[in-house]
């Protein structure tokens, strides 16, 4: 083997060993982890299934920390900062080593903590505790819990009573008297002494009291069940009311969304007897609108003429620029084609501008006690002018607002002197 080849083999071997993932299982479960600070061994973490800690303090600054197996395999580590803290968690299969390094003016310190993987029983206990916690969180509401407690208490009382009765019966069966037939029992009663009769009477009394207790327990259980039913009924009615509220809110929202359309339909829905229409006011309003329309038509025509002039100038300018910049004739042609397309787009913009130039009309009512001066001042502030009045509603004309109409009306409603604002009367 030549030297070059030998060297190449060695290089490949080195690269291969670094490409392989570290085999942590080689550490086994009980072998300590060697801890190195500044490439000097300072101790080991003897952690098998228990937590282990190693603390190192020195006058020298800590530069590097390394964790190695007993066979020298580098498991992990960190490069410490010149000053301050740095932490790192080195994961070794299921186990973990937490490193914390601090460098100060006085020196460096290292804390290494080996945290073993939780055992099977530990994991089982954790799962059970989690389950119990979740169950506790899902406990019923207070009212239901009260009912449940009542029922549980009643059942416990009933169980005690039943056990008492059973015990009493068993005692009676065990006694020799119980074996005697009923026909014989009467004879026996006749022949029995007064003391025995008294004892029997006492037992009967006890039995009666026990029966009374059982009856009371049953009654209290019934009461508990009634209470539970009532609570459930209340809960279900609350649920229904919440559901109906949700439906109402949805309907209200839908109504609001459809608001403008309904408002437009409203004049047709107003019954004729609702108010007297002032004919003169309508006529004045119609005249005012017609005059405004004429004025706006003239303005639109002027703007369109101006736009045409500007478009022609722009086209000429773009053609000049394209010719000056583009050396390639094909690109010039393409640009000219693009120029030719642009006039098709411009009218769209023009029409948008023309619709925006139309005045914006809306109706407002003012708060009670608002003076005419305040109203005029407000209208002037809006750079608009007042239109007709109808049933306490004032028509106002302004330049188109920069925000959507609904939002604009919301803004208007927020003003102090405005009581209500609408798009249509």
């Amino acid at each position, binding site marked *: 083997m030549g030297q070059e080849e030998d060297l190449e083999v060695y290089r490949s071997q080195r690269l291969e060993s670094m490409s392989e993932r570290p085999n942590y299982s080689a550490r086994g479960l009980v072998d300590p982890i*060697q801890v190195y600070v500044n*490439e000097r*061994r300072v101790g080991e973490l003897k952690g098998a299934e228990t937590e282990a800690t190693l603390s190192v303090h020195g006058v020298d600054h800590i530069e590097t920390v*390394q964790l190695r197996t*007993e066979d*020298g395999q580098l498991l992990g580590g960190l490069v410490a900062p010149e000053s301050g803290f*740095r932490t790192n968690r080195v994961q070794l299969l299921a186990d973990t080593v937490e490193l914390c390094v601090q460098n100060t003016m006085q020196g460096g310190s290292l804390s290494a903590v080996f945290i073993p993987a939780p055992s099977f029983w530990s994991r089982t206990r954790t799962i059970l505790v989690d389950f119990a916690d979740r169950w506790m969180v899902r406990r019923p509401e207070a009212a239901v819990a009260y009912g449940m407690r009542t029922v549980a208490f009643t059942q416990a009382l009933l169980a005690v009573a039943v056990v008492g009765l059973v015990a009493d019966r068993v005692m009676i069966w065990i006694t020799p008297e119980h074996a005697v037939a009923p026909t014989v029992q009467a004879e026996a009663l006749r022949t029995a002494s007064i003391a025995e009769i008294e004892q029997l009477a006492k037992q009967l009394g006890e039995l009666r009291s026990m029966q009374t207790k059982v009856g009371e327990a049953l009654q209290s259980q019934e009461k508990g069940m009634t209470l539970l039913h009532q609570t459930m009924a209340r809960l279900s009615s609350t649920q229904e009311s919440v559901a109906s509220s949700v439906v109402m809110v949805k309907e209200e929202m839908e109504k609001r969304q459809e608001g403008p359309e309904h408002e437009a339909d409203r004049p047709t829905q107003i019954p004729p007897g609702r108010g007297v229409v002032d004919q003169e006011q309508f006529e004045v309003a119609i005249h005012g609108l017609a005059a405004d329309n004429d004025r706006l038509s003239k303005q639109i025509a002027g703007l369109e003429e101006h736009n045409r002039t500007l478009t022609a100038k722009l086209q000429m300018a773009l053609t000049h620029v394209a010719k000056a910049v583009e050396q390639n004739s094909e690109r010039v042609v393409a640009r000219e084609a693009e120029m030719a397309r642009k006039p098709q787009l411009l009218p769209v913009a023009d029409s948008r501008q023309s619709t925006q130039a139309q005045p914006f009309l809306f109706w407002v009512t003012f708060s009670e006690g608002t003076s005419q001066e305040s109203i005029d001042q407000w209208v002037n502030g809006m750079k608009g002018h007042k239109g007709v009045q109808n049933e306490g509603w004032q028509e106002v004309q302004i330049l188109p607002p920069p925000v959507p109409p609904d939002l604009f009306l919301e803004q208007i409603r927020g003003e102090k002197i405005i009581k209500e604002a609408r798009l249509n009367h």
Partner: protein
Amino acid sequence: MADRTATVSRLEEVVATSDEFDRVVAQALPVLLDRAAGYTKRFLRETGQWNDDIEHEKFALRWGSEYLERFLVCGRTEVPCRPLFLFDSLVAKQHSKPEPFCYHPDLLKPLGRFLDGLVARAVVSRDALIALYHHSYGWGAGDVITVTGLNGLESQRIYKNFRRWRESGWQRTMDEMGLTKTELTELEDQRQRHRQRFNSEAERLIRVAQGHYRKSEPDHYPCLSRSQWGEMFSQGYGCDYRIWHLALCVDCMQAAWGLGSGGSSAGEKPRLELQVRP
């Protein structure tokens, strides 16, 4: 060549997470290894320690891979970073130390490389450290336990260290040092044919290596006199001290000879009897 340039460019970019660091660096291992070897070569040239031969090339590659291994583990904690610049700074930091590596012309020959590899590995591997007793004096696990005066619990670990060394540690160390089967066979032959000369040469070289690598021990593990060793052995403390220092110091081993067995088996002081195989 274009791939190499692209890889270097990628290494110059910022990596934000540890996973990204692993991914980028894993794709650039050959580039980084050659870079580190190049830096080591330049350092040796500048310090007048370079020769154009395969031994020096292997030496540069060995230390390059050593730096790269540390970079792979520690660099991922430095994110966000530019991996190439971080790697350069790590190598520069190593080369700015007084004696960054153990260099001696005789340690580049097969016997020197063998000893250098054993002692260098002993610094980072307890398996290699314990095995050093075997390779230096021919002792088994029981002998090591007796000589160092260990208790029962520590004894179990010694057996385990020996087993792991035989199974994988020795071969890995030989691979790291670039010792071929032919070279190892030649060493074995020399040991058998010229035993005394071989061992005296080995003792001379192992002292050089031990002197350098003992600096890797904790500061509180200096050489001791026989009486001090005696006190430590008799009172039963300094278990780690005994294991680590005696393996890495021929003189202290001779000074402390017999103290582990209470002086009962103290015969002739141990001499170096180099073992090539585990």
